C-alpha cells in the first residue's frame, strides 16, 4: 500500500523543496532594490509562510487518512459508513480559515494603502521626481516635465528619491512594470494612473510593458538607471543643452506601431502639444493622417510591409 502512496509523498517533497527554493534571493521579485518592492516581497513571503502551513496540514491529513482507511487494511473495525458529519470539526475548519484570512487581509490592506502614497514617509518628505510615462505600440516615451527633457525606452532616476510616474497610453492598454522596484500599474489611453517607485541602490533595472498588446509586445522593454542625485542633475543639464529638440514630426513618427532601434533623448517634451491622458485618439488620428492603414496580418500587403522594424531589444 505504501508503495502506491510513494509518488504522492515524493510529489509533496518536491513541492516543498521548490517552495523553499522559491524564497531564495535569486528570483527578481525576491531581490528588491527599492522600498516598494521590498514591502511587496515581505508581504509575499509572509503569505507563502501561512499558505505553507495550510499545505502541510492538508497533505499530512490526506496521507494519514489514505493510509489508515485504505480498503485492504487488516482491521476493518473502524469502518463507519454512517459517519456523515461533525459539528465540532466543521466549525473548526470554518473558523481557522477565517482567522487565516483576517491575518492576511490586515497587512494586505495596509500595504495597498501605503503603495498609493509617496515612498518618502519621513516628517520632511522629499518632493517626488515626476515622470510622465506614455506607452505607444511598442515603446515607452518618458517626459520629465520639470526638467524639460524626454527619453525613449530608458530613464535615469536619482537614488533614494521617490519617483512619481504618471502613466498613460497612446493606444493599447499597457502595464508599466519594473519588478525590482515594485509592482505594476496599467497605462491606459484617455486616463492617467499614478505609481510611486523608488530605488535604494545604484544600478540598472529592467522594466517592461507586461500587458499583452500585440505583435511587438515581447520587446516593449526599457531600462531604469538609478544614479546619484549629483549624476542625475549633471545628466539632466547635459541632455538639456546637448540633445535635439523634439519636433512634432518626429513625435508623430513615434506614434506609428513598431520598435525603435536605439534609445532617444530630447531637450523638450511632447506634453506641450498633447497629453494622451486627455486626447485618447491622438495616435490613431496621426496614423490616419500619415496614411498608415491597419492591415490584416494575413493579407497580402501585410506579409511584406508593416512588420515591426526590428525584433531586437532596443537597448541603451
Amino acid at each position, binding site marked *: 500500500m505504501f508503495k502506491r502512496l510513494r509518488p504522492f509523498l515524493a510529489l509533496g517533497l518536491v513541492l516543498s523543496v521548490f517552495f523553499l527554493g522559491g524564497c531564495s534571493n535569486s528570483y527578481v521579485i525576491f531581490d528588491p532594490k527599492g522600498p516598494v518592492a521590498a514591502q511587496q516581497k515581505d508581504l509575499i513571503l509572509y503569505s507563502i509562510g501561512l499558505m505553507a502551513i495550510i499545505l502541510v496540514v492538508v*497533505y499530512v491529513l490526506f496521507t494519514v487518512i489514505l493510509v489508515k482507511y485504505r480498503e485492504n487494511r487488516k482491521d476493518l473495525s473502524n469502518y463507519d459508513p454512517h459517519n456523515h458529519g461533525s459539528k465540532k470539526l466543521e466549525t473548526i475548519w470554518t473558523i481557522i480559515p477565517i482567522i487565516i484570512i483576517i491575518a492576511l487581509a490586515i497587512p494586505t490592506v495596509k500595504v*495597498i494603502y*501605503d503603495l498609493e502614497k509617496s515612498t518618502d514617509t519621513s516628517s520632511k518628505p522629499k518632493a517626488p521626481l515626476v515622470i510622465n510615462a506614455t506607452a505607444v505600440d511598442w515603446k515607452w516615451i518618458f517626459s520629465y516635465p520639470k526638467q524639460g527633457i524626454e527619453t525613449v525606452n530608458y530613464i535615469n532616476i536619482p537614488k533614494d528619491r521617490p519617483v512619481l510616474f504618471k502613466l498613460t497610453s497612446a493606444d493599447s492598454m499597457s502595464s508599466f*512594470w519594473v519588478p525590482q522596484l515594485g509592482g505594476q500599474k496599467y497605462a491606459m489611453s484617455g486616463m492617467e494612473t499614478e505609481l510611486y517607485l523608488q530605488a535604494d541602490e545604484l544600478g540598472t533595472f529592467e522594466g517592461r510593458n507586461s500587458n499583452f498588446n500585440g505583435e511587438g509586445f515581447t520587446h516593449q522593454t526599457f531600462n531604469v538607471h538609478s544614479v546619484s542625485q549629483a549624476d542625475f542633475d549633471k545628466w539632466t543639464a547635459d541632455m538639456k543643452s546637448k540633445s535635439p529638440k523634439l519636433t512634432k514630426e518626429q513625435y508623430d513618427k513615434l506614434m506609428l506601431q513598431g520598435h525603435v532601434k536605439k534609445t532617444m533623448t530630447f531637450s523638450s517634451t511632447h506634453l506641450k502639444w498633447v497629453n494622451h491622458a486627455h486626447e485618447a485618439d491622438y495616435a490613431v488620428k496621426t496614423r490616419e493622417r500619415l496614411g498608415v492603414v491597419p492591415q490584416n496580418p*494575413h493579407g497580402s500587403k501585410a506579409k511584406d510591409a508593416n512588420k515591426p522594424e526590428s525584433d531586437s531589444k532596443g537597448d541603451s
Partner: protein
Amino acid sequence: MKWDEFFVTGDPLIYGADVSIALTTVGILFYLTYFKKWKWLWTEWITTVDHKKLGIMYIAAAVLMMFRGGVDALLMRVQLATPDAKFLDSQHYNEIFTTHGTIMIIFMAMPFLIGLINVVIPLQIGARDVAFPYLNAVSFWTFFIGAMLFNISFVIGGSPSAGWTSYMPLAGNELSPGPGQNYYLLGLQIAGIGTLLTGINFLVTILKMRAPGMTLFRMPMFTWSALVTMVIIVFAFPILTIALALMTFDRLFGAHFFTLQGAGMDMLWANLFWLWGHPEVYIVILPAFGMFSEIISAFSRKTLFGYKAMVWAMVIIAAYSFMVWVHHFFTMGSGALVNSVFSITTMIIGIPTGIKIFNWLFTMYKGRISFTTPMLWSLGFIINFVIGGVTGVMLAMAAADYQYHNTYFLIAHFHYVLIGGTVYACFAGLIYWYPKMFGHRLNERIGKWVFWLFNIGFNVCFFPQFLLGFDGMPRRVYTYSAASGWGPLNMVSTIGGFVMGLAFLLFVYCLYYSFRYAKREVAGDPWGVGRTLEWATTSTVPPHYNFAVIPTVTGLDPVETFRNQKIDTKPKLADLKPIHMPDYSGVPFVMAVFFFIAGFGLVFEWYWMGIVGLIGVFITMIIRSFDRNEGFYVGLEEIKETERINE
C-alpha cells in the same frame, strides 16, 4: 477581399493543417459512404433529442477540442523551451495562445462538463429526459457550430490574436484588423446561446422533474452542483452576450463603446468581460466539485461528510462569484478602497472552498478507500487543487498581485485550478460514468498509467511556472533572451507538457483498447459502490426512457439503501406502462447550419450572407413553433425486451 487573404497562406504548419483537415474529411466521407452510415448518422445522432446521446456528442466534441487546444499548447511550449527560439513568429504565437485559451475554456471545459451533466443528471434525479429535449439539441448544435466557426479561423481568414480576454482597444479594428477577431466574437456568441439555453433547461429539469421523494436536500451533490452552476449560467451568460455584441458593433458598425475614438471606454470591456469571466470560472469548477463529491463518497463507501455544509458552500461560492471580478485587474488603478474590498471578497471565497476540501478528506475518514482510476483522479485533484487554491489566495492580495499580475505565476495558478480541478474532474467523471454511456468500463491498468503520467507531467509542466513568475517572466511573451535566465525552467515545463500530451494519447488508446476487449456490463452498477439513482438502471441505459419504472427515493444515497435492504429494483411486469417520449428532429441541426452561415457572413462582413443566415434561423424557429411535436410511445414489448423481463 482577395483569395490569398481568404485562405491563410505562407506557413508550413498551416499547410500541414490544411492537408490533414482535407484528408480527415475525405476519410470520414469515405467511411460514411462505404459502410452506408449516412442514414445511421442522421437518424441516430444528428436528429437526436436524447440527453444521453447529446451528452456523448458534447463529450466527443470536447475531447476533440482538447486535442486542438493541446496541440496549441505544445506548439507554445516548443517555442518557449529555449531562449530566442525561431519556431513560431510573434503573430503566429499570439494567435495560438489566443485560440488555446478560448478553446480550452469555452469549447473544451464547458462542453465536457455540460456533456457529463447531460448524461448523468436526468439519470441521477430519476427523470426520463430533460425538461426541454428539443432545446437541448439546439444547445448542442449551436455550441458545436460556434466551436467549428471559431476553429476554421486558422485556415480561413486568420485566427484572432488579441488573447482570450480580447482587451480593448487592442481587439478593435485599428489594432487587430482583419476577420480574426470577428471569429472570436461570432463563434462565442453562437456557442453562448447554446449555453444559456442549457442553463434554463437544466434549471427547470432539476427543479421540476426529480423522482418522487427526492427533496432538494436529498439531491446528490453532483445534481446540486449542476443546479447552482445553471443559476450562474443564467445570470452570467447574458453579460457575455452583451459584451460580445457591443464589441461586434464597434468592429462592424463603427460604434464607440470601447474604442480610442469617440470617447469610448476601454476599461468597460475589461469590467464586462470579467463580470462574466469570473462566474465562468465557477461554472467550470462547481460541476467538478460535484463529481468529486460523488466519486470520493462512492469509493470510500461512505456517505458524504457534511452534506449540508457542502451545499451551502457552493451556494455561497456562486453568490460571491459575481462580487470579485475586479481582482482580475487590481493594477488598473481603481484606488486603495476598491482594491481592498475586492481583495477581501476574493479571499473570503477561500473559506467555503476550504470547507469543501476538509469535507472531502473526512468523507474518506473511517471509510474503505479503493484506489480505482476515478478515485485516483479525485485524490490527485485534492493535492493539486490545494496548491491552486492557496496561490489563488496569494493572488487575491492586491498589493502582492501588482507583482504577480500578467506573469507566469498567474498562469501556473489558473492551470492548477482549471486542470487540477476541471480537467481532472472530466477524466474522473468520464471514467466513472463510462459504463452508463457505453456499457463497458475502461481498462483500469492503462487508466492508472494515464493518471500517473498526466499527474506527473502536469506538475512538472506547471510548477516551474510559479517560479518563472517569481522571476518576472511575463505571460504571452513569444520568446525571451538567454540572459533572462528563464531557459532551464522553461525547458522543464516543456518536458512536462509533452508528458501530458503522451498521457492524452495513451488515454485515447485506452478508449480503443477497452472498446475492443473490455467485459460488457449488464448490471446497473458495475463499480459495485454506486450510491445514486443512475446506478439503479441498466448499463448501458435503456434507449429513450432511462427508467422503466421511476424509483421512489427515501433519503440520500438511494442505491446504497436498495443494496443494504436488498430491495430488488428490477421493474415488475405489472408496473410497466407505455412511456411517452419526444420525437427526434432535424430542425436544431438545420438551425445551427443557418447560424453558421450567418456567423461566417458577419465574420467577413458579407452582410447579405449574414441576413440570409438569420432569416434561415427565424424560419427554423417558426417551423418549430407550428410543429405539433406530439412525440411517441415506447410500447410494452420494447420495454420488456430491453429490461429482459420474461413473462
